[in-house]
């Protein structure tokens, strides 16, 4: 692990400890080691002496702001501390824009992030179970149960979206864990769409039908999505209005994901939590990232950049209408 990463981890622990000691928060949400070495899971820290279990490394992919949705219900007046990466902070900003989280009850620790590694790709590179992952500078050292040890380049293991990250720094935070990273220049990037966009309409239909045929409707994607917040009343699961059939089949599955995409459009910054949570590895980014690209090209809009901004579907600019003329 690089010095910067260690410094960030130390700082997260320190800030959490401080917040709990001062009574600033009732609990603090961060990341901790999971059940297997290649896994990091969310941590809910309530006591000062638990703070040392908090960790930071390139496996901390969870967007923890998902625990804040539905107006931070747990318990209704709890004061909550939470860690956010750049992408996570944008979903938080989207929720703040819609006044769906209570700023006053929130303590946000922003973590500058060099990129999260694609755990799936890493595990697939080995036929054997991975029993240890160590981060050494630019290298990731992986050991398997069979005793094989390999050094892989960190850069090459990055998630596609992290390799072209536009926002390595949090857009909203109370305290920072570590130094801010250089802000990339240039227009926003929407990677991984070129191949899809080049297809004809029929081929696109086929690609999507194939992709969604395997969906098992486990709803992990919408559970994990921080900006998908009508879970109890989700139209995808209600009989009235009967927008979506409950049959688990390619067409209905696609309809369900389309409804999800349109519902989160304008709030979704393509944090990729849905992609990573899908047990059957459906390329959900084809919908969400594509939608964000369209929003940017049509309206110059990017979700969750500034708390003061209005969500795109809540605004009407006369020039938008005049431009159509």
């Amino acid at each position, binding site marked *: 692990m690089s010095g910067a990463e260690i410094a960030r981890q130390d700082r997260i622990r320190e800030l959490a400890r401080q917040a709990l000691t001062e009574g600033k928060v009732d609990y603090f949400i961060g990341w901790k080691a999971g059940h297997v070495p290649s896994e990091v899971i969310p941590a809910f820290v309530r006591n000062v002496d638990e703070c040392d279990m908090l960790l930071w490394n390139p496996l901390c992919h969870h967007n923890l702001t998902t625990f804040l949705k*539905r107006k931070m219900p747990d318990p209704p007046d709890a004061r909550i501390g939470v860690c956010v990466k750049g992408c996570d902070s944008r979903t938080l900003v989207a929720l703040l824009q819609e006044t769906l989280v209570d700023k006053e009850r929130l303590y946000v620790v922003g973590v500058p992030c060099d990129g999260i590694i694609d755990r799936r790709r890493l595990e697939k590179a080995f036929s054997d179970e991975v029993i240890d992952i160590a981060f050494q500078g630019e290298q990731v050292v992986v050991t398997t149960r069979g005793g094989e040890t390999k050094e892989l380049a960190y850069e090459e293991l990055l998630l596609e979206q992290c390799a072209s990250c536009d926002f390595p720094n949090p857009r909203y935070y109370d305290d920072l864990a570590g130094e801010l990273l250089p802000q990339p220049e240039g227009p926003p990037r929407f990677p991984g769409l070129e191949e899809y966009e080049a297809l004809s309409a029929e081929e696109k239909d086929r690609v999507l039908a194939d992709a969604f045929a395997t969906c098992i409707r486990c709803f992990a994607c919408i559970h994990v999505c921080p900006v998908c917040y009508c879970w*109890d009343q989700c139209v995808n699961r209600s009989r009235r209005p*009967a927008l979506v059939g409950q049959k688990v089949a390619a067409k209905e599955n696609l309809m369900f994901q389309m409804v999800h995409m349109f519902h989160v459009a304008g709030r979704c910054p393509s944090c990729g939590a849905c992609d990573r949570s899908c047990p059957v590895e459906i390329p959900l980014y084809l919908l969400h990232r594509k939608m964000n690209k369209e929003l940017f090209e049509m309206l110059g809009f990017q979700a969750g950049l500034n708390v003061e901004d209005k969500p795109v579907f*809540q605004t009407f600019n006369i020039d938008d209408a005049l431009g159509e003329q």
Partner: protein
Amino acid sequence: MRIGVFICHCGTNIAATVDSHGLAERAAELKDVVHTEDVMYTCSEPGQAGIQRAIREKGLTRVVVAACSPQMHEVTFRRCVEDAGLNPHLFEMANIREHCSWIHDDKELATEKAYEIIKMAVAKVRTAEPLFPNEVDVNKDVLVIGGGVAGIQVALDLADAGLKVTIVERETTIGGTMARLDKTFPTIDCSACILTPRMVDAAHHENITIMAYSEVDRVQGYVGNFVVDIKRKAAMVDWNRCIGCELCVQKCPARGPDYFNAGLAETKAIYIPFPQAVPKRAAIQTDYCRWFQQGKCRVCSRVCPANAIDYDQQDTYVQRKVGAIVVATGMDVFPWEEYYPQYGGGRIPDVISGLQYERMLNASGPTGGHVHRISNHEEPKTVVFIQCVGSRDEAVGRPYCSSVCCMYTAKQAILTKSHCGDDTDVYVFYIDIRATGKGYEEFIKRAQSEFGVNYVRGRVSKLYEDNGKVMVRGMDTLLGHQVEIPADLVILATGTTSAEGAPQLAQTLNISYDEFGFFKESHPKLRPVETNTAGIFLAGACQSPKDIPTSVAQASGTASKVLGLLAKDKLKTSPEVAVVDQSRCVGCWKCIDVCPFSAPEKQELRDGTSRSHVIETVCQGCGICVATCPVNCISLKGFTTDSLIDQLEEALLG
């Protein structure tokens, strides 16, 4: 549930392409349908009586009429079923005319489509619920936007009838385009002489408030209860003190462009557009004022006897509550310089626009009514008029006729003869002469025979300078040869275009406008002065190019429509409004943000949490909140999501 379906022939309008009789037989098979009938004219008295008889005799609880657009007859049939004791919202209209018979030729396919449309209507009416209207109080004040002749006429008519009227005018004086004209056709009477008394009437009327140098900034609310924010632009002169003595204008050393004189002259940086201005108050064009540009001068403030100059004045905003709004924003002159390089594009000094010539002819204009060439100030011996510049010309994107140019050209041709003498040669190049008003054709004839104006039928292809003359090259299509006339002065009959900023205003008011920026009436024949937004009306040239008599006549028509609306003390509101299912509301308040009428509000529940609540009498049923609500907890009565899905399912799966 007992549904009756009535299928109209509409003479042959529907029956020619749709088998109405066959449809009546097939519709009888639909679920819950207990009575079907095909009728020659369902909207006729016997047609309506048939519906009422069926309701009584067959005990119908829902009615579908398959006929024309609900725009035409929904109200008719709602009233019809209501008279027979049914709630009017248990009625649904299936449009098999505009949406089907009129647009198809193949009878078999069209009949099939009509059947599907009927099935959808039956599916929708099945879940319909009885709805009941509310009533709201009506504010009887009126806002008139634009103080030209049309706006003044509307305001005077309404004020005479006892309503309080506010005129908002963006220039410093009311009067509009008419105030800039010299004489009016076909009587050649002085434009100012007939307009200025009306301006003064408006200014002195106890029921009229004039807000000059002001613009409408924002409009909220709905028919009967609009809330309008008006921006009062900073004139840099305290109008409560200014007495209009013009001392400041005389002494001001800086010059600026003269809008009123169409750029024919310059005005002072502090200015009053014309002697009869109402209100007669000075304003500073800060872009040209020495104090604002260079930080020196302040001559006006020193000479002002009323101590009215206020260099620190800021724009202010006032709010007016009104029941109706009349839009009378008028027109502008087509910016010909950008579009007609073949006429010199504004670089030949002796080629001027019709409005500039109007100012030149005017006794209070920049030349004191003396007609002269711009280049050397000599009186012209040959004057050429060119018609249809910026009208009826698709090459410049103006296919419409500006409707006033034929007449004002004839008027100006006659005035040229009287200003410069009978021996002046006057030519008019025209495409067609349009003189359809009362006394108009006779007026053209007088110009030709009595005053000897030469009318040449043909377009002018080119204007160029040669030896101190403006060479006019064109075609005489009646004689079939080219002509070239060395002219001293060329006047372009510049067409009319919508007023600057008209599309922006339309967006502010939420009314429709066409590709040229003219506002759209609700129906060209049946609702010519109403817009599609209830409570907002049109008057004058903002709707389409109009001359003075037509504008004034329409303005009085508009006033009578406004009076009709405001004669009632209460307005019935449509029960087709949004309603919130509070158990599902997450309180994101998007509905409050997007609502153009401020209908949703935060309502605190007993547990201390807040949910959205739609105020029924304020909601106009536009449905924006329904589409915006992320949790889908708002629905529109009469158009519930379920009923729309039922319709879709019937169309796609049924």
